[in-house]
């Protein structure tokens, strides 16, 4: 790092409410949040998987559970979490391979991640419900 860069006065605070993240920063923190959200709700997904495959009777029970509006809302949230984590995850894997590492490209791919995951959530969500 050059002397000039070090001496440049920068605002120094770690107040989370004041830090304004650049777009790739949002993609990154949302990747963490979506991963944790999926982890916390794995039990629900496994209950549904279990019910849906047990028997015709348990399948009917599964249908009943997913018919509940609150469950629907949670599943829609998890669908977004998976889509975002999936798209952002692939972006991170490419960054690890040094693909798209320069700033303009990195900005564009973060916009793409946010847009694609939201679109997929809306399209799949609409198709399922």
């Amino acid at each position, binding site marked *: 790092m050059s002397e000039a860069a070090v001496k440049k006065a920068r605002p120094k605070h770690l107040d989370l409410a004041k830090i304004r993240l650049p777009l790739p920063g949002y993609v990154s923190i949302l990747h963490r949040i979506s991963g944790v959200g999926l982890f916390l709700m794995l039990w629900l997904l496994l209950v549904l998987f279990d019910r849906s495959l047990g028997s015709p009777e348990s399948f009917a029970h599964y249908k009943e559970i997913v018919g509940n509006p609150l469950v629907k809302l949670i599943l829609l949230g998890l669908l977004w979490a998976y889509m975002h984590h999936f798209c952002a*995850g692939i972006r991170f*894997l490419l960054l690890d391979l040094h693909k798209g590492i320069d700033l303009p490209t990195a900005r564009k791919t973060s916009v793409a991640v946010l847009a694609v995951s939201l679109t997929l959530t809306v399209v799949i969500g609409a198709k399922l419900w």
Partner: protein
Amino acid sequence: MVNRIVVGAHYGLRDWIAQRVTAVVMALYTVVFALRALSMPEMNFENWHAMFSSGYMRIATFLFFACLFYHAWVGIRDLWMDYVKPVGVRLFLHVVTILLLVGYLFWTAQILWRL
């Protein structure tokens, strides 16, 4: 990084690689699953059941879950290491996470091999 003295510790590289390999496996499975689900004529018990008991799908699904749980272990452990500093609490959370994920693995095996 440059003048690192090698002492035999793996510096987390193995976990870093495992998280990425499992991510790739899950991504591939997601595409296969989506294609199979889209080609399902109707979402009912027979079709859904047939999808997971057919040939490669059962084992592929199990591998997906195994990767998921290992991936989640690395990710959640990183999270505890980032945010939870007291050693005792962190150890407790690590143990709870492991037990939960190992339990989930046996649960998915049971779901898939009862078909």
